[in-house]
């Protein structure tokens, strides 16, 4: 029994307790910024949130009030444009990757998709600028939408591939057994079965695209006026926040917080939907 009470044993226990404490502390510490960000966004933003904020246009410098109706519509248009590019490309290439597995080409494409996922969005913005803004000689909603679409591709490709792979091979075999050709099997049997999971990927990518600012800075640019033209600069919530945060007016800063609140609520809602859907799948 003497050994158990030795100082060495006590020291080991103490060290163990310190390590566990460190783990608990770091978990607590990490949650602090989250709560602070949520707290400040709500506290600073809530006062500027009212009906006008969603339905009015921005007021000229010096006047208080006004809203971000154009930015809301602009963001919706940009995300829709992005989806129009990102969803088909992402889903189709995901299907391709799920059906081809072992050879060099699909492997390298899969790897490139991962690399594209890690590519800074501002680089994608510059490329969209070179490709669309320079030849068209104007900042445009279209170029912004395309930049967002490129950002959406990797997430959708990856989830599609994973979800299609999760469909049991027996389903596929049963379909083949009924004499259904491969492409019809994929379109009418496999895809519906994988649809739910694919949807989660699409939802996440929309949340990501809606929160992007950097690629819009030199593509969609931003616009203080109402515009739904695809070949003209267009406002977006994120660029709205950026401009209003830098502005030296208290009222504008408050509106930046309010817009952040709207953005956070939107993005978190999509993430919660994602969590619910993916929880059910398991």
């Amino acid at each position, binding site marked *: 029994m003497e050994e158990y009470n030795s100082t060495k044993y006590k020291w080991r226990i103490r060290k163990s307790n310190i390590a566990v404490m460190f783990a608990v502390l770091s978990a607590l510490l990490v949650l602090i910024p989250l709560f602070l960000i949520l707290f400040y966004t709500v506290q600073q933003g809530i006062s500027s949130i009212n009906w006008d904020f969603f339905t009015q246009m921005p007021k000229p410098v010096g006047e208080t009030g006004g809203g971000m109706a154009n930015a809301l519509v602009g963001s919706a248009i940009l995300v829709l444009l992005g989806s129009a590019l990102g969803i088909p490309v992402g889903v189709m290439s995901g299907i*391709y990757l799920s059906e081809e597995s072992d050879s060099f080409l699909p492997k390298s494409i899969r790897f490139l998709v991962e*690399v594209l996922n890690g*590519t800074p969005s501002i680089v994608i913005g*510059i490329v969209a600028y*070179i490709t669309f803004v320079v030849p068209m000689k104007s900042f445009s909603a279209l170029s912004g939408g395309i930049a967002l679409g490129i950002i959406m591709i990797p997430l959708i490709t990856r989830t599609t591939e994973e979800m299609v792979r999760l469909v049991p091979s027996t389903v596929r075999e049963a379909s083949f057994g009924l004499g259904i050709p491969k492409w019809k099997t994929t379109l009418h049997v496999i895809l519906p079965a994988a649809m739910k999971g694919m949807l989660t990927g699409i939802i996440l990518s929309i949340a990501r695209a809606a929160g992007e*600012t950097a690629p819009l*800075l030199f593509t969609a640019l931003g616009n203080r006026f109402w515009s739904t033209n695809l070949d003209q600069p267009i406002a977006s919530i*994120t660029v709205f926040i950026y401009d209003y945060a830098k502005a030296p007016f208290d009222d504008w800063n408050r509106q930046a917080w309010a817009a952040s609140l709207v953005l*956070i609520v939107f993005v978190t809602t999509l993430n919660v939907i994602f969590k619910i859907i993916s929880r059910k799948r398991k």
Partner: protein
Amino acid sequence: MVLKKLFSKTEEKFFHSNTLQNNERHLGDYIFHNVTRLFAFFVLGLMLVMFLELFIESLPSINKFGLSFITSSEWNPVKDKYGALPFIFGTVYSSILALMIALPLSIGVAVFLTEVAPTWLEQPVSILVELLAAIPSIVYGLFGIFVLAPFLKNVVEPFLQTHFGFLPFFKGSFYGFGMLSAALILSIMILPIITSISRDVMKAIPDSLREGAYALGATKWETIKIVLISSRSGVLGATLLGFGRAIGETMAVTMVIGNRPEISLSLFDAGHTMASVLANEFTEATSSLYVSSLMEIGLLFFLITIIINSIARLIVNNVTKKYGKIA
């Protein structure tokens, strides 16, 4: 493999005799397969086009400055002279600092989630940590401008200067905006990715290892140490992914780093990163050489992130092969 392929080919010939219907079937498969392949190649083409476009646009700058573009620290639009060293330094310095803050915390949280927390607590904490990743970077920037920077200026930086002012890291006057605030914001942003991948790797470590350790009389910490050692390659991959994320982060950094092309070890000084100079100056660039130099920064930036992310992915994929799907 070869045998299998041969077999499936003869099988196809045997079963699908050339009736009209079967020809149609093959045609449908052929079309569908090639259409999906086309889209997959779109991604391949996209990467190539991105690289080529950036390269072509930065040619004037590459021709003019050559290697001195990377080694010169003079960034002077008035004299039309451009050197990218301050931006490369700012990017790497801020990201390394962020990593130094985020890595121990992430590992702590991952250990908490896998080894310490009771089951009912595990899920909610993971979800909250992942929520940090969902917050758009512009919101982090806003938080940095109005909450973090004033706090640093009024509380943290005076404290650091009076007590640790003898170190080169805490010299000079402070404004709140600068390397320190950028590093802090970045560390919050890269925490979730390092945490979630490390957690998945630690989860994948077989329980028999832990049971073995406990059976030998190991304490909790000694068991955790064994888990940490076995998951080190996964954690390394996660760290590199987090590093890549920190390097690529644009908006939040732009809003808090102070945006001055200086090279200084002091955390109080303003800095500039490759991403922030692009965000700030791209639309204002007037001379064509100016634009081209920014393009070259974009190209360098693209290459650096590709390299770091490739290495990180290779490591994580290797771990995945060993333990099953991770992130």
